[in-house]
């Protein structure tokens, strides 16, 4: 591949063309998960548990099934009981038993909103009426919501067969702690003994939802011959296909998953809730079935990310050199094991060169909805603790917070606490850009404060595919297997246009269904522009080779006497002949005479994603009368490798910051004493809106990743990592109080001010 690691003479990459899907989305023509209408389609609805924890004694669907207009009712009894089986699915681990048990409860309900049964009827009103006719007898059990309460020896147990993994010797009694992990380098006791200054803190975050505007939605059709089609909004049609097949005991080849447009996912659509239920209803009814969650269902029953507790202890020399760090991360997994514990532990201190580090993590189940991935899963939680503690350390040392980070910054050859050695990273450059930015030295007013925080995310590659086709008129099609969440169609088309030498407007990208292109991992992990882009560039280069061969055939000269320049075949030199350049369109027009269609498909398990580092600066003002925090100015700086489409990269940074500010200031799940979620709607679950935010400034630092085409890095996840600590550090700067418990909401801040005043 000739485009690895960066290239300076670029025509398309680095420009800002209009996105190919833009007009459809702003005019309402785009088809999202709920938009498909099929002849005879039924409406499905889900019956959900009103209890946080209860044994299911009896389910009687007789009356619901007898209601006129109801064509099917299903419960977990309509699905195979899946044995405990962990497997790699898409980009991560999946325990099929847990996914199945979350889809429809079996034996017990484990949280308020847990799905128990489903109906399909000729109208939504009839389906909802039928839900009321389903009779369920529950034996209500004690429940536990709080993660630390769930770890207590006498806490109500969610799973009788759950034993803590990672303990030596293995435990003999079940527990809500599903897993303990640990990473150690050096010797922290020695490191702390060398320290001249120490800080210690305990930081807590709440469960927050990804908050995608489009709810989960799907349409499923069971064919009379057993071949099925699922149209749904997800972050991976192949994930939908494989999980549905597994949960229903079907052959993958009998399911075609068609990706709808996706109205936001942010990690929350990397699993399924509805598709097998809709397909099972369709199988019973013999008609297509659509299920669309309402907002309340999205909050009660689809994955938020974990809340957590992060204990941090840092030791340093008086010159700021970190000598040791100890971090303990405890994360809510929800009702089934599987929080983003590994990344939370691994990312917390990955920005720094520390010789002695001990990080321990616990994955804990409680009576909440099972968590799902959320943008840099886990990293914002660990980093909130670590970056808050770094701020306290800077204060204790009397150092500038960026200078402290520069003193300890990870650089070429730094070994992280999880063992990996950093190469080709741009953290130091990003810190330097932050320190030099005018924002960092701008004056502040009364009750105003400035906070700085940093973040790290690995970025990933994985199984990928792409195809590039040359059409008869010389235009090109790019076929991607991955739903486009953040502008990947544009970036993929731009990379193909760059390699082919075509104008961007002559390259049209599409997102294919699972029958039309080889399997690919999900749209997540900031991987699509990198991993699918790598395949697109490789396929485009194969196409260029074909075009050169076809030109050679037309000119009747050897293929190696042809070069590809600016979208045209040209003779390699005077000895090749005096031919006029042959444009791509002219070669395409003769494809039938020169060997048939021109195109290439590339599959790969793409590796070599370059890690991302971010440095954020936040200015805010605290209203001491109301406790309200107003963010005045925010600058996000990030090493992006190479921005393929700078506007969409900037948009990713701004989006991550907006979500992080919501996490920091307002968002939380509020439960009643009975374990019921009390704020399952946007009125009571307060996400930031445009009027809450200043224009978020971005600085794109470009340190090329030598293992990626054009030097690019994934960009979408790390921008959500620093905001929580940047806000807390700014509040500390403004009013002198360390707010260690998120969200820093007006009531909480007011209470802290009152305590301080007393």
């Amino acid at each position, binding site marked *: 591949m000739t485009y690895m690691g960066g290239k300076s003479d670029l025509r398309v990459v680095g420009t800002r063309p209009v996105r190919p899907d833009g007009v459809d989305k702003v005019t309402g023509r785009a088809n999202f998960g709920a938009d498909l209408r099929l002849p005879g389609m039924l409406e499905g609805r889900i019956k959900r548990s009103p209890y946080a924890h209860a044994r299911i004694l009896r389910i009687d669907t007789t009356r619901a099934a007898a209601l006129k207009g109801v064509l099917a009712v299903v419960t977990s009894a309509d699905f195979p009981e899946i044995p405990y089986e962990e497997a790699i699915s898409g980009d991560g681990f999946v325990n099929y038993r847990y996914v199945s048990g979350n889809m429809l409860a079996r034996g017990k309900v484990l949280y308020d909103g847990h799905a128990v049964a489903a109906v399909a009827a000729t109208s939504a009103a009839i389906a909802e009426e039928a839900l009321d006719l389903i009779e369920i007898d529950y034996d209500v059990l004690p429940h536990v919501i709080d993660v630390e309460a769930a770890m207590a020896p006498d806490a109500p147990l969610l799973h009788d067969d759950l034993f803590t993994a990672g303990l030596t010797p293995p435990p003999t009694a079940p527990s809500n702690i599903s897993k303990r992990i640990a990473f150690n380098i050096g010797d922290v006791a020695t490191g702390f003994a060398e320290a001249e200054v120490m800080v210690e803190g305990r930081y807590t975050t709440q469960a927050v939802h990804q908050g995608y505007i489009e709810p989960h939605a799907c349409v499923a059709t069971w064919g009379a011959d057993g071949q099925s089609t699922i149209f749904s909004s997800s972050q991976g049609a192949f994930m939908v296909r494989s999980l549905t097949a597994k949960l229903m005991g079907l052959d993958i080849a009998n399911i075609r998953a068609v990706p709808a447009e996706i109205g936001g996912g*942010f*990690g929350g659509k990397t699993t399924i809730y509805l598709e097998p239920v809709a397909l099972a209803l369709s199988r019973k009814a013999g008609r297509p079935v659509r299920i669309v969650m309402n907002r309340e269902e999205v909050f009660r029953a689809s994955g938020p990310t974990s809340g957590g507790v992060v204990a941090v202890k840092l030791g340093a020399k008086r010159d700021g050199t970190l000598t040791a760090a100890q971090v303990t991360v405890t994360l809510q997994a929800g009702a089934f094991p599987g929080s983003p514990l590994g990344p939370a532990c691994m990312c917390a201190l990955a920005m720094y060169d520390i010789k002695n580090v001990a990080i321990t993590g616990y994955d804990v189940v409680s009576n909440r909805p099972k968590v799902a991935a959320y943008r840099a899963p886990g990293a914002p939680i660990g980093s909130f603790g670590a970056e808050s503690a770094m701020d306290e350390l800077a204060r204790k040392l009397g150092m500038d917070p960026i200078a402290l980070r520069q003193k300890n910054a990870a650089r070429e050859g730094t070994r992280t606490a999880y*063992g990996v050695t950093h190469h080709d990273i741009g953290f130091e450059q990003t810190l330097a850009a932050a320190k030099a930015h005018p924002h960092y030295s701008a004056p502040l007013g009364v009750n105003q404060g400035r906070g700085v925080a940093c973040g790290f995310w690995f970025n990933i590659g994985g199984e990928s595919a792409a195809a590039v086709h040359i059409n008869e008129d010389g235009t090109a099609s790019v076929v991607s297997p991955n739903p486009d969440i953040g502008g990947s169609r544009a970036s993929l088309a731009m990379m193909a246009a760059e390699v082919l030498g075509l104008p961007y407007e002559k390259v049209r990208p599409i997102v294919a269904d699972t029958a039309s292109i080889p399997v690919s991992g999900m749209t997540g*992990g900031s991987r699509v522009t990198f991993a699918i882009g790598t395949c697109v560039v490789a396929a485009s280069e194969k196409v260029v080779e074909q075009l050169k061969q076809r030109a050679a055939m037309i000119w009747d000269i050897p293929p190696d006497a042809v070069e590809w320049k600016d979208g045209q075949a040209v003779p390699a030199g005077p000895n090749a002949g005096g031919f006029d350049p042959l444009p791509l369109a002219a070669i395409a027009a003769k494809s039938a005479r020169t060997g048939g269609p021109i195109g290439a498909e590339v599959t790969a398990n793409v590796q070599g994603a370059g890690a991302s580092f971010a440095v954020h600066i936040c200015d805010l003002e605290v209203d001491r009368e109301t406790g309200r925090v107003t963010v005045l100015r925010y600058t996000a700086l990030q090493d992006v490798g190479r921005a393929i489409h700078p506007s969409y990269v900037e948009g990713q940074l701004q989006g991550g910051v907006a979500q992080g500010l919501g996490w920091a200031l307002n968002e939380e799940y509020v439960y009643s004493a009975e374990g019921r979620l009390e704020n399952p709607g946007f009125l009571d679950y307060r996400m930031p809106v445009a009027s809450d935010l200043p224009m978020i400034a971005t600085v794109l630092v470009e340190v090329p990743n030598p293992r990626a085409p054009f030097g690019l890095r994934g960009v979408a996840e790390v921008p959500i990592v620093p905001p929580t600590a940047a806000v807390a550090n700014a509040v500390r700067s403004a009013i002198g109080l360390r707010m260690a418990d998120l969200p820093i909401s007006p009531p909480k801040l007011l209470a802290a001010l009152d305590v301080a005043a007393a």
Partner: protein
Amino acid sequence: MPTVVLAGDAARALAGGAAELTVAATSFRRLVTELDARFPGLGRLVDEGMAVAIDGVIFQDAYAVPLTEASEIVLIPKIAGG
């Protein structure tokens, strides 16, 4: 010989508490086989449950990656994104 770094407790427990090992192998696939022969269960853990970083580059699946005498192999949990 390539060096294998075991930063996590799970892998260390199977390797008798070792934080680093040297393993004679010319590819990651052979390294996994060799690890399992020396420490039963470790190869399976690596094969089914872990990603690997070879000389700082994270691989979710690294069977075909050649190793050199100076290679540093770090075993880490699989990483999924949002």
